[in-house]
């Protein structure tokens, strides 16, 4: 997602740091906060989620997202790059149509459909997250490689670069910002879908929410929701910073490659 211009970088540093600190503090501190929640929710006999340590759920959530995103990024990028090569060009219209149409599919639907195929647990979550996360990466890779201006390609060719070098020295570096935007969408959506994945048996930060919803325990719901929200916001802030840094490096390297 493209963002509007922001304030000075130093201000951002603090914000990411604070969100992360709040996330960790709450993940490790909430299990010890019974008096607070007992006061807030006097009607609940057990106002703090203690079935599993929340910190452990946080790491499991993160692990699921990291693994599925790694698969999605790897496959999506590979497919996207392959479709922009002469040999794979025939697949490009189909991949574009699939990436656009696939993203209209609700992530929950993919999650639900993965269960009949592989059963309950972490596996359907992993499959659904990888599959769904693949689409924005694929779309962004295609758009990124496409966005490289024709004069750049022509001058690279005129300089005598081989097609392979054109790909690695000009197309990939110049496509990186758009690609990163796709990766960002993919990861953020995956963090949210991983929370819903607790309905198919994966242990994530969604577990307190689901347990709370089925047991009318609003305190559990609140604890899970705050942690998932903070996790997603931290990831988004981290990507924001990465995108800024990349913007600098990219213009730098690509410029050097072509001017040297």
């Amino acid at each position: 997602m493209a963002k509007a211009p922001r304030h000075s970088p130093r201000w951002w540093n603090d914000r990411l740091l604070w969100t992360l600190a709040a996330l960790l503090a709450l993940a490790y501190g909430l299990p010890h906060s019974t008096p607070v929640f007992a006061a807030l929710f006097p009607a609940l006999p057990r106002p703090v989620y203690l079935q599993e340590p929340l910190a452990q759920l946080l790491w499991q959530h993160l692990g699921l997202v990291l693994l599925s995103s790694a698969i999605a990024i790897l496959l999506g990028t590979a497919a996207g790059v392959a479709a922009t090569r002469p040999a794979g060009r025939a697949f490009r219209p189909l991949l574009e149509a699939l990436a656009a149409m696939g993203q209209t599919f609700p992530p929950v639907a993919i999650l639900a459909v993965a269960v009949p195929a592989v059963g309950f647990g972490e596996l359907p979550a992993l499959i659904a997250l990888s599959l769904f996360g693949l689409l924005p990466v694929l779309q962004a890779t295609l758009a990124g490689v496409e966005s490289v201006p024709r004069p750049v390609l022509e001058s690279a060719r005129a300089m005598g670069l081989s097609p392979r070098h054109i790909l690695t020295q000009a197309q990939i570096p110049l496509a990186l910002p758009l690609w990163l935007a796709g990766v960002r969408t993919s990861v953020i959506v995956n963090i949210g879908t991983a929370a819903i994945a607790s309905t198919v048996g994966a242990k994530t930060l969604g577990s307190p929410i689901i347990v709370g919803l089925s047991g009318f325990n609003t305190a559990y719901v609140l604890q899970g929701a705050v942690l998932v929200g903070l996790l997603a916001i931290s990831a988004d802030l981290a990507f924001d910073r990465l995108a800024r840094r990349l913007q600098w490096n990219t213009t730098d390297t690509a410029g050097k490659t072509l001017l040297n």
Partner: protein
Amino acid sequence: MDTRPERWNPVLALCMALALGAAWGLPFVRVAPNRLLSGEPVFLWQWLPGTSAWVAAALALGLGVLCLALVQAHRRAVQASAALVLSAGLAALWLAAGHHASSVSLANQADNPLVRTSLGAGFWTLAALAWMAALDAVARLQLKTLPRLLLQSTLFAPLLLSLSAGQDLSIAKEYANQSDVFGPAIVRHLQIVLLAIAPAVVIGVPLAWRMTREPRLRETLLPVLNVIQTIPSIALFGLLMAPLAWLAVQAPMLGRLGISGVGLAPAVLALLLYALLPIVRSALAGLEQVPVATVTAARAMGMTPRQVLWHVELPLALPVLLIGLRTAVVQTTGLAAVTALVGAGGLGSIMFDGLFSAANELVMLGVIPIVLLALLADHFFKALGTLLETPAA
């Protein structure tokens, strides 16, 4: 780059190779003594010896057209026929499964009326491959946006026409069991989407208009909307539950209006907040791309600011606004499925019922209409956008 049209179609080749593998290795349907067991697999090749001459002839004809399309990728008539064959193939898959289900039901009528024939991995894979190959064939026709969208939508027509042939399939039986719930679930789903989108437009568009006048508002509000968009749906529902429940207790009047921690209120409120970002952002982009000269000319003609807004700025911003509206509607249709978890109902409740009772076909009964609704909304807004853009350009 080389843009010479290719003669052979590797996409179709890959789809056909995968389809052959799926027909051979994956169970096409499963026959189980009741709805909760997974059942005995039945493969497509097991039916080969029993096919009638007519079916064999139709299959040969279809395969012939596909093989022709394989080597004549540049001929539009051939690709159009291939799309037709693949669209009919989708219906044929359903007919074959339905036919098998009927014969199984008939044979077991006396001793086990509970017997179920459910669609297997083979069916779903073949259907997906046929659909993808058909999409590719349509893309090769290089049509304009509107006819292409229309053609893409009609790919499912033969399947829809032959729907009744599958009445003995497990998924049709689930539908029969749920028929009194199914209609209201769709209505509820649409209600949720409408209740979220309509206020989002009513709030979002004027907000964007204010933002074009006041940069400060834009600088403070857009980041907030961005952060809201980042928060996962289920977390946002959860975060809204506690305050809404508290509000309902504090003001019983609101409670009587149906505002409470569970149900429609948190669902619609969360979806509205999500829909705001794409709508505000696109309205902003739309209003900003209206040429200053046009607005100046309108003013010079003696139009009041209100007239300029209604007759010049908004109509010119509409095509861009529609892109954001499409994103918002498609996203809301999908997210409305999750609202079932906070008790808002809709198609999501059928899906989660199936998920929690391990009834796979019930899951599909919830998922398929959600996906179709999202696709339909996507196509509708894309078509509307093209229709609006043509006169402006």
